[in-house]
Structures are given as C-alpha cells and as structure tokens.
C-alpha cells in the first residue's frame, strides 16, 4: 500500500517537473506580486502616520493595521487637537482613531454612496465629495461641529474641472 502511494507521488513529481521544464506547455507559471502601497479613505496615511512609519503602514494589511497603529493614531489626533473630546459622530478619541486605523472604505451596494452628504455617513466616496472638509470637521469640530471654526473648512469646495455624466466620469487631463 505505502509503496504504491510512493510510486504515485514519484510519477506525479515527474509529471510536475516535466511540465515546468516544457517550454511549450500551455499552462503559464503563476505570476505573483508583493504589496507596495495601500489606501482606502482619503488622507489617512498623510495625516495620521509619522514620516518614519509611512512605508510600514503601506505594507500592512488592513486587518493588522489597528493593532500596529491604533495607539499612534490616537496620539496623533490628540497632538493635532489637544482639546478633542468627541466629534460629530459622537466618537471619543480612542473609538474614532480605532475606526480610522483600519483603512478600508465602507461602500453601500444599495442607496447613496457618499463619504458624507448630511444624511449618509461613509457609504462610499464620490468624485465630488468634499472629503477634506468632512475630515476636518471630525478632527477639529467637536461634538456639534462648531469648535475651531478656522480649522474645519479649507474653503475649497469643488474640483477645478467638472466631472462627466458618462464613463469614465473623471475630467479630461489638463
């Protein structure tokens, strides 16, 4: 019994070797890649990750990011806004940075898809969403978005070119 299996394995190995060495084989060798950059929500790496950690963050998969960077994100938030209590979403510093440090974008498959439109929160990201102002409000605006009014809007509210109604939607290059 055992011997038969060994023989089968040996035959299998020979076939596999033959396949690898046969230039005319129709099955291509698998092409493999290693992650080099990663992003989901806008400006997360830019705002929350220190210069020395940026490459490490890009090389960390989302499911491992909170454990590796959650505390650093909280420290960064409190350095940017020492007066932070909660934000418009009602999240305290630990909860808010806990959400942000897993860099994925939640996307609805029915209904509105927007970063924030006054009603829907984090159901996607549209081209014309003013994501920076939303993030500034969540960082600096306090529980009712009225704190630090000089910091909660960059007053750039739209793109410099209009978007298209049809595929590929982005405007022609300058």
């Amino acid at each position, binding site marked *: 019994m055992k011997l038969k299996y060994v023989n089968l394995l040996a035959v299998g190995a020979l076939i596999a070797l033959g396949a690898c060495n046969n230039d005319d084989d129709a099955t291509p060798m698998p092409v493999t890649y290693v992650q080099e950059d*990663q*992003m989901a929500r806008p*400006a997360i790496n830019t705002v929350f990750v220190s210069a020395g950690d940026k490459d490490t963050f890009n090389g960390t998969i989302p499911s491992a990011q909170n454990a590796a960077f959650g505390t650093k994100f909280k420290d960064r938030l409190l350095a940017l806004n020492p007066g932070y209590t909660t934000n418009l979403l009602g999240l305290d510093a630990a909860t808010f940075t806990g959400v942000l440090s897993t860099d994925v*974008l939640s996307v609805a498959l029915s209904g509105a898809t927007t970063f924030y439109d006054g009603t829907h929160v984090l159901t996607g990201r549209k081209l014309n969403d003013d994501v920076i102002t939303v993030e500034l409000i969540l960082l600096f605006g306090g529980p009712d978005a009225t704190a630090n009014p000089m910091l909660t809007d960059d007053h750039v509210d739209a793109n410099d070119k209009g978007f298209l109604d049809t595929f590929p939607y982005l405007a022609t290059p300058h």
Partner: protein
Amino acid sequence: MKAKTTDLRKGLAVLLAIGVISSATYLIAADHIDAPAVTGKASDITDFYAFESPSNSSNLVFVVNTQGLLAPTATAAAAFDSDVMLEVNIDNSSNKDNMEDLVLQVTFENGKVQVYGPVAPIEKGLNSTLVTTGYKVESDISTYAGSPMTGEANGIKVFAGPRDDPFFFDLDQYKKVIAGTATGFNNPGTDTFAGTNVMSVVIELPKSLLGSGPINAWATTNRKN
C-alpha cells in the same frame, strides 16, 4: 479667482520642473506621494473612490488614481508599469474581517490594460497571485493626446490613462497650520491640486458581482516578484 488658479498652475508646474520641491519630504494628501518607498513610482496611489454609477444604478464604479501632481507638460510621458499590478480588494463577509473575499486585478502590458475578476483570490494578505480563470476585460491604455479608450466585457468596463486629478484641497495652507505658521484656513482657499493630472484606472461593474453589501474595499499596488 480664475486668474489665481491659473497662476498657481503655472507656479506649481515651474516648481516641479526645477525641482525646488523635494518630493520625498513634500507631504501630499489624500495619499499623494505619501511614503518614501513609492514616491515617484507608478505604484504610488493618490486616491481611491467607490460610488454608484451615475449612468446605471445597478452598477458600482471604482477609481484608483496613481502618480499625483503630474504637470500637464509631464503627463504625456507618464506611464503605467508592467511590473505593477493594481488591485481592488473587497471584503463582503458578514462579519467584516477586512480580509479580501474578492479581488479585481489590473495589469498593464504593451499599451493595453487588463482587468481580471471580480474573483476569489488564491491567497489573502500581502502576497497576490494573478487569477486568470474568471472574468477578463481589456482596453487600449488611453494616451494624453488621444480620445479616451474603453473596453467592456460581461458588463464590466475599464478605462486606464491620464485624467484631471479629481481631488481638491488647500494642502499648502494645511501644512502652514500644522507647522504653526498659520492659525487657520483662508476663505476662499486655494486648491493645491488644480491644474494637475493623475494616471487613472476606472472600473465599472454590476453590483451583483460583488455579493451582498455593504462591502469594505481598499486599493493596493503590488510589484511583480
């Protein structure tokens, strides 16, 4: 306002052209030129968008932009890298473990872009293997001067090529605030990204190919071993 924008464009183009700005230390949002290892490479992702198609509510659109702050004079020479695979990762699990259950894999070769998937990945995590057994759609890569080229198969559309950078932000003023040399933003602000281009990949596909929502999604670039 228009004149100011034009001046900024010219100013930015000049600054980039003569290399006054050291790109390695110039922090750019959203993720424009965000990290030393990818700065200046085709693998540097600037922004990721996911939205319901404006032309078909049964479809979702993913946009992955790379190579930020391209001056118009630099855009014709910008190119995708055949050694870099761009990936849209989709977690459609009910418990949202933030591991990819489906991937869209985008490769660039000989002036063409290929999109494979959505398909279950062979492996999850930092390493990716190209899965060529599922859906595939292909198009010519659009050029700076030419009209946009698109491909469609099985209801999945793809565009790849230079586009206006859709991102807008007064990044320069933000940097002054962070550096302590300004106390707040100006009104009106100045869009640091006005007049610049990105290398863009746009994919539109039926929502039904993504499972049940909501999904969690993220973009990666991955270099060939």
